[in-house]
């Protein structure tokens, strides 16, 4: 391999690295190519009757049963707080071992499976219980924390760590020399993850856990839009007011309250566990012929090949196409929206409105966004593209918008459009790309759950397998999804390293 040329000393402060431009351009070209391959037809219909009912519902929010709703709000928060705390601790542990390949692969594997699918798996073993809800959050979030913490630690100032005497113990050097220097970013990220945790916890209601999503989905599906709006606004209010209640000194009391609130008397039935692992997830030919029969293994091979040809291949293809388009869509959305919350562009008052808009956009579950767009455009890839792009774009916009708060401008910096195009956007472009690469995986995962649109993504087939109670097939397809995710992860890791993308912004204005 040819040696990587040394970067010129001042190249860190320049955004116009050709690598970044090439990367952006190629992502754009790939997305355009995918767009040509995708079904983007619009089937004009008469959605306005339904849309106006939705609109009316949003203007007249109703809370049908307050005690029930507040109980599910408490459950939503309890799952999120406990789930995120436990996975933050586990993730930190793994982050310190992240140079081990096996840790990286395991993290990529566990986070590649959507919370809903984890929950569906645990549902078979633990039923609709606290344990199912917690594990469905803890497992994928541990994988996410491990990766992000590890990369934050890598990017932080390594001086102290390198100056340690050689005999310093592994854990103490990690704790004192690495963790402490990166602490502010780590806390910032963990707070943001708590918001994601509340969203995930809410979405678990879609499959029957008693969180807010349970009511939101039921009301919305049945066309009770006022009631759905009531639940949605409650959820948005909780997220929007996070900076007032998710404070460090409240965390311990909140955690204790969560433990007290959740019913923990899960009946762990070993028969169910054994049945699931010893029977349900075995490929059906093996179940039929027994493990020791050659015939069974031969049949299993052809079972796998059929599944691969009929579902895995087409599922992966559609998933990748949708992901690549939605990735660029999210990027564009984020770049357009981030100024809304940036102090460099808007006054404090206007930014409140901007924040609220972004909170709303990222709090509406993709499934509901997709449904509304489906009403207007008819079934094709378009609803999925917009739903994923807006949702993820709003999240990235929030993250990079917050980063512009610490950018110091020169006195003679340009104003308005010029400031946006020539100064701020270039400065945040690298962290922006880094965030976008994180979302790559997320989008891949989420493209899985839009089955209502009839898109044959991997998630569509996994959902079908669960629906047909074929856990062997579900597991096979989940493994394929995981491999795809590990592939995407390693590509994004390589690109990140090669282009030195970091989530730390280029804060200082260039000295002359």
């Amino acid at each position, binding site marked *: 391999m040819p040696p990587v040329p040394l970067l010129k000393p001042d190249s860190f402060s320049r955004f116009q690295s050709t690598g970044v431009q090439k990367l952006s351009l190629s992502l754009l070209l790939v997305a355009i190519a995918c767009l040509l391959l995708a079904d983007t037809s619009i*089937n004009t219909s008469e959605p306005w009757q339904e849309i106006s009912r939705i609109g009316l519902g949003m203007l007249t929010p109703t809370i049908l049963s307050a005690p029930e709703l507040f109980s599910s709000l408490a459950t939503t928060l309890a799952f999120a707080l406990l789930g995120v705390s436990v996975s933050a601790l586990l993730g930190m542990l793994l982050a310190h071992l992240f140079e081990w390949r096996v840790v990286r692969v395991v993290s990529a594997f566990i986070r590649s499976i959507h919370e809903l699918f984890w929950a569906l798996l645990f549902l078979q073993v633990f039923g609709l219980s606290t344990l199912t809800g917690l594990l469905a959050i803890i497992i994928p979030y541990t994988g996410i924390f491990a990766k992000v913490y590890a990369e934050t630690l890598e990017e932080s100032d390594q001086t102290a760590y390198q100056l340690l005497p050689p005999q310093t113990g592994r854990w103490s050097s990690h704790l004192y020399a690495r963790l402490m220097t990166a602490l502010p970013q780590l806390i910032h990220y963990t707070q943001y993850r708590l918001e994601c945790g509340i969203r995930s916890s809410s979405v678990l209601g879609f499959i029957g856990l008693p969180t807010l999503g349970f009511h939101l989905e039921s009301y919305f599906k049945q066309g009770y839009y006022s009631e759905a709006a009531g639940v949605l606004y409650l959820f948005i209010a909780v997220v929007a007011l996070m900076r007032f209640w998710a404070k460090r000194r409240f965390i311990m009391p909140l955690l204790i309250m969560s433990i007290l609130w959740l019913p923990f008397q899960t009946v762990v039935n070993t028969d169910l566990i054994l049945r699931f692992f010893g029977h349900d997830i075995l490929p059906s030919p093996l179940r039929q012929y027994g493990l020791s029969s050659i015939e069974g293994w031969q049949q299993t091979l052809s079972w796998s090949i059929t599944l691969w040809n009929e579902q895995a291949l087409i599922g992966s293809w559609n998933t990748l196409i949708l992901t690549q388009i939605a990735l660029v869509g999210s990027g564009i959305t984020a770049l357009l929206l981030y100024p809304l919350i940036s102090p460099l562009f808007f006054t404090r008052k206007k930014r409140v409105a901007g924040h609220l808009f972004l909170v709303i956009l990222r709090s509406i579950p993709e499934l509901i966004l997709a449904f509304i767009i489906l009403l207007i455009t008819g079934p094709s890839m378009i609803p999925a593209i917009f739903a994923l792009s807006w949702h993820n774009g709003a999240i990235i916009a929030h993250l990079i918008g917050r980063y512009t708060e610490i950018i110091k401008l020169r006195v003679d910096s340009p104003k308005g459009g010029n400031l946006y195009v020539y100064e701020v956007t270039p400065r945040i472009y690298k962290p922006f790309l880094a965030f976008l690469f994180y979302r790559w995986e997320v989008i891949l995962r989420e493209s899985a759950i839009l089955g209502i649109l009839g898109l044959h993504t991997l998630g569509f087939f996994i959902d079908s397998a669960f629906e047909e109670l074929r856990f062997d097939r579900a597991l096979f397809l989940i493994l394929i999804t995981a491999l795809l995710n590990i592939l995407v992860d390693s590509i994004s890791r390589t690109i990140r390293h090669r282009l030195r993308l970091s989530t730390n912004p280029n804060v200082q204005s260039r000295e002359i």
Partner: protein
Amino acid sequence: MINFTHVFSSSRLAKTLATILMSVSIVSVSNAEPFVFTAIPDQDETQLKQRFGKVATYLEKTLKVEVKYVPVKSYTSAVTAFRNNQVQLAWFGGLSGVQARRLVPDSTAIAQGVEDQFFKSYIIANHTTQLQRQETLSDQLANMTFTFGSKGSTSGRLMPEFYLREHFKQSPDKLFKSVGFSGDHSRTIALVQSGAYQLGAVNYKVWDKGLADGKIDTSKVSIIWETPDYPDYQWTIRGDVDAKWGTGFSQQVKQALLDIKDPEILNAFPREGFVPAANSDYQPILNTAKSIGIID
């Protein structure tokens, strides 16, 4: 032959662990466990609550034991709850009943609605398709957009798919421009009425009730074809209830269901009344599910 389950369960550690865990769980459960039932969420949840709330009260009075209805979110969770003995009785659709009874060997179908012996589905269309009601499926359906109900629904998916395949000699994926799964019958009607999908398949009972309640705008959406008859919904009970609630308990439950005469309960289903059912009544459903590849 090595039996995988056996290898695991013979481990002493697993057994000890199981005993400890079970004894822990027993503490929190009161000794008088209620008789629990559920139903597939095939339509508007508020209607389901109203319908099965009445059934629970009736059964409690008749059987003299505590009876509880638990709502579930999906067809699969209804089957899973039944399989895991979290519920002992369930109002299943044809397909979910077949799936459940395959997973719980001693379980039996005990009663079905009078109408469930001759159930049917409608294919409905948005008015912009300009399709009229016909005796046979029209070739004009090809390349339109189409939505089923839930993936696990008999009347919203299994039987319509079977007849579409039989007539057009190809799978719905190939036949239609796109195929969605709305999730339930009420949603299917809403999606076709709004024109988001041009065509849909729907349970005839849900359609008729929607029509009677004035929830359907027939200038926007109408029936273009109906399937031949097939057996559908039924009450299925676990085989081990007699051991827990006393000999003859399942017979008592069956009789109680057959004896429902209260029009208020029956209208909520809506069924004229209940008649005895047997597992063998649903053999055609099993065969169909196998033929379209939903069951191995």
